[in-house]
């Protein structure tokens, strides 16, 4: 059975009469004329006339066909699928109810209204005749009930609908609904959207798809019972993991006032461990924002869960996990009484310039180092140490596997073969030979170039006046090989790798292929040496994988054997953060081992809404509107709905092209004769 996507175009079939009318009005009238003789007309005169009349008739028929094909192509006919054609499985109405359960729906009265509207959306449907589906969405669209005829079951699912804490993505939900209706044989296809139509929720829509032409969109906007806007936290930052360095950390939030009235004397409080640690009062002008920053010194190791609360309802949860001073083991390959010649002197001094240092360096000579020393360290620095005893090498590998870090600083004491044998499997590179810098700018030294400022170690130096890493000069350095599996973070002026890193296990091995000694480089005497070494050691000791901040809906990394306690103090069987707050992983002893800060979407605080007409105009398809090139999801719509039916359209299109060519040929031939 043939149907049409744009049936209104069929009215244009009347245009098929146009070629006939044109012919009738402009056809040749037979003239009568006397002529001296008919001898030159031969016997073919009548044949020529007959042929001309036939050609004209053929041309008219061809043009009529051309118009009809053109109209048909625009009308876009298709074969209805077997099920649809049979009519037996065709339902009257297929309705997908799309319900907003994002955080913004938690406002006063919205949850009840949401449930009521959702249930109401199924009221007009009849059991046995209609089908329905239920989608609950925040930033993701979850099909609570797929398209089916069991309306009672669907309504039961609708009763369980409750707003969550997620952000909103309206277009993703509508797209999902469109997908559900694809290929469904129904006389009416409807999508009912029940939402507060948050403008932030409409922002992800890129305008790259539209609803199928036969899908009707109904919008049921919900408004909160209390239309007064309250201040909301729209942006926040807090330290996730800290090194116990005695320095104050910053906890900042940005509070927005979305109302038309100024918000005065709003108390923003910092709570730590359940008690108020600090507070500030801010005044925010209408539709303005205010930034609030607290500084706090986390001076004890362990988790420091806290929250910043703006008013009574808005809260930002965080957990500052403070790590103890990082134990750094420096394996000295060239101990010397002369500090200038000692390989570990400058490194140790830089890591611990005073009492407030986050690092606890310990120097051990290469011949005396033991696996126990390595196991006790978070970071190991091999200062001009070319070889270590076998068990120590294994211990280093174990350190890396656990997530620790190793920094190689090879110098003149290192033998390439020994180094490659001992550390080839864990070092970022192998060593080949010592190179002397080529003469440049009046000195025989190379600078660091092509520094990867996006790397956590060097990003602190990316801004102007934050330290110039090109100032240190390197007179000697090692030529490296086998760097394929490593990331080069900086190079010497001749292009050879200078600083490399390689991930091994959970840890990272890093190498600066030059000893920090005065006859090799002046790096140690430059001002950037200390921050660079600190950044390296901090990076090697503290890296990702130690998250303390999560979003609602995320799975929390609760260690095996431990249970999760939610903000209400209840033990949760699942490790999913269902609501904002501070979660804790409870160990076997019943004490919390880790704490997790979970927050909802800050975007949900913005009460601005998008107009229903804007959504209709953006994704609704006007009658007769073709599937455009900007519609990569045309497949979701009518075109892909029943792929076989498109074959008829293609046949007609090919027919149109052929008829056009035939018309061109025949009209050209007719004109010539």
């Amino acid at each position: 059975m043939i149907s049409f996507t744009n049936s209104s175009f069929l009215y244009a079939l009347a245009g098929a009469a146009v070629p006939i009318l044109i012919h009738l009005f402009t056809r040749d009238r037979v003239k009568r004329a006397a002529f001296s003789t008919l001898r030159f007309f031969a016997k073919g005169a009548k044949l020529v006339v007959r042929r001309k009349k036939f050609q004209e008739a053929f041309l008219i028929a061809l043009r009529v066909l051309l118009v009809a094909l053109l109209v048909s192509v625009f009308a876009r006919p298709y074969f209805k699928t077997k099920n649809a054609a049979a009519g037996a499985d065709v339902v009257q109405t297929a309705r997908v109810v799309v319900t907003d359960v994002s955080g913004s729906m938690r406002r006063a009265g919205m949850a009840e209204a949401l449930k009521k509207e959702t249930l109401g959306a199924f009221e007009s449907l009849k059991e046995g005749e209609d089908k329905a589906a239920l989608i609950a969405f925040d930033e993701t669209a979850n099909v609570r009930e797929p398209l089916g005829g069991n309306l009672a079951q669907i309504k039961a699912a609708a009763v369980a609908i409750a707003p969550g804490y997620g952000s909103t993505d309206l277009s993703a939900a509508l797209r999902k609904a469109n997908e559900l209706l694809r290929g469904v044989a129904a006389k009416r296809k409807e999508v009912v959207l029940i939402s507060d139509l948050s403008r932030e929720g409409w922002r992800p829509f890129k305008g790259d798809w539209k609803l199928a032409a036969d899908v009707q969109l109904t919008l049921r906007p919900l408004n909160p019972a209390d239309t007064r806007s309250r201040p909301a936290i729209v942006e926040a930052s807090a330290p996730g993991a800290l090194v116990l360095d005695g320095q104050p950390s910053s906890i900042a939030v940005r509070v927005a006032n979305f109302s038309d009235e100024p918000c005065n004397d709003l108390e923003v409080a910092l709570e730590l461990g359940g008690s108020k640690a600090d507070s500030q009062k801010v005044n925010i002008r209408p539709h303005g924002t205010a930034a609030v920053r607290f500084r706090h010194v986390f001076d004890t190791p362990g988790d420091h869960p806290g929250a910043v609360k703006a008013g009574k309802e808005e809260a930002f949860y965080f957990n500052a996990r403070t790590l103890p001073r990082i134990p750094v083991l420096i394996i000295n390959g060239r101990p010397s009484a002369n500090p200038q010649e000692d390989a570990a002197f400058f490194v140790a001094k830089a890591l611990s310039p005073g009492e407030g240092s986050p690092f606890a360096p310990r120097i051990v000579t290469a011949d005396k180092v033991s696996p126990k020393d390595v196991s006790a360290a978070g970071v190991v620095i091999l200062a001009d140490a070319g070889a270590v005893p076998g068990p120590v090498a294994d211990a280093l590998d174990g350190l890396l596997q656990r997530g620790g870090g190793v920094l190689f600083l090879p110098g003149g004491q290192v033998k390439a073969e020994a180094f490659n044998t001992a550390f080839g499997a864990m070092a970022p590179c192998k060593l080949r030979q010592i190179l002397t810098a080529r003469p440049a700018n009046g000195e025989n030294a190379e600078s660091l170039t092509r520094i990867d400022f996006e790397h956590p170690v060097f990003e602190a130096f990316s801004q102007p006046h934050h330290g110039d890493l090109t100032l240190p000069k390197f007179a000697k350095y090692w030529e490296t090989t086998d760097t394929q599996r490593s990331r080069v973070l900086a190079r010497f002026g001749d292009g050879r790798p200078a600083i490399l890193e390689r991930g091994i296990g959970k840890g990272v091995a890093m190498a600066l292929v030059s000893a920090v000694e005065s006859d090799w480089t002046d790096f140690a005497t430059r001002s950037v040496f200390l921050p660079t070494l600190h950044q390296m050691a901090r990076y090697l000791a503290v890296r990702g994988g130690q998250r303390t901040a999560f979003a609602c809906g995320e799975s929390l990394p609760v260690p095996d054997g431990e249970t999760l306690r939610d903000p209400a103090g209840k033990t949760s069987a699942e490790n999913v953060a269902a609501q904002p707050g501070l979660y804790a992983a409870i160990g076997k002893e019943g004490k919390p081992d880790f704490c997790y800060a979970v927050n909802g979407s800050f975007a949900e605080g913005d009460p601005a809404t998008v107009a229903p007409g804007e959504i209709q105009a953006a994704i609704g398809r006007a009658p007769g509107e073709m599937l455009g090139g900007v519609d990569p999801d045309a497949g979701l719509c009518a075109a892909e709905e029943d792929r076989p039916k498109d074959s008829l359209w293609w046949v007609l299109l090919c027919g149109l092209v052929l008829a056009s060519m035939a018309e061109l040929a025949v009209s050209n031939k007719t004109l010539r004769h």
Partner: protein
Amino acid sequence: MPNPGALDFNVLARIDSMQLLAKVVVEGFVLGLHRSPYRGFSVEFAEYRQYAQGDEVKHVDWKVYGKTDRYYIKQFEEETNLACYLIVDASASMGYRTGPEGMTKLQYASRIAACLSYFMVRQRDAAGLMIFDTKIRTVLPPRMRQTHLKHIFAALETAEPGGETDISQPLHQLADGLKRKGLVILISDLLDEPEQVISALQHFRFQGHEVIVFQVMDNGELTFPFNTITEFTDLETGQKTLVSPEGMKPVYMEELRRFLAAYEKGCAGIHADYKLFDTSNPLEIALSEYLYRRSRMG
């Protein structure tokens, strides 16, 4: 050389009087010539005149030159024994013209005949006229008198297109009736079978006549300017046929080309001069053809 500027064909086409037309054409034509080399050279001496550029050297009197050391040309009383027979086709097809303006082929042929006869008499040649269609309708024997011209002009003015063309039969009859050798000028559209017409012309040649054939065709016949479906009626037979000119034109032009080529080739075969006239072209070309042939005859 003819002087086209002196003979405006559009003006001539509006002159109904044959005599006036002939006078205008011929006088204009003669004025356009340099000094005529064909005029007044016969057997009766008339006078001397001084040699001028363009005179033939054979007419220089060398005896006088020997005596006076000057070139003189002998002029003679004009006298001729040449009889010219103008044969004009007045069949129904000769009444064709493409548009309402302009001349029919018969009018054009009559003007050619009038001009030629006027010129002949002025040249002291005897001009005769025969008009025919399916049969001979008018016969005026060759005469040199001026009064004879009036008869010729009157016959030409009153000539009307008649029945079907049957050229060969009247020509054979005429050939049989002409006793005196002369110049035969056939002016016709020749819409007959070329073989039969050439055969009839050969009859003239067999009897020692010089033959000139002027085939007169309307411009519409030569170019076939029709562009819509037309029902054509044969002027002679009344037969009708529906023709699509767009499709038929190439066929027509090819048939016409063969037809004209058959006459051209046939005339060349019997050593007769052949000239195709388009009724939209000037008349003086006919006079040139006549003079050329006349000069060859001496």
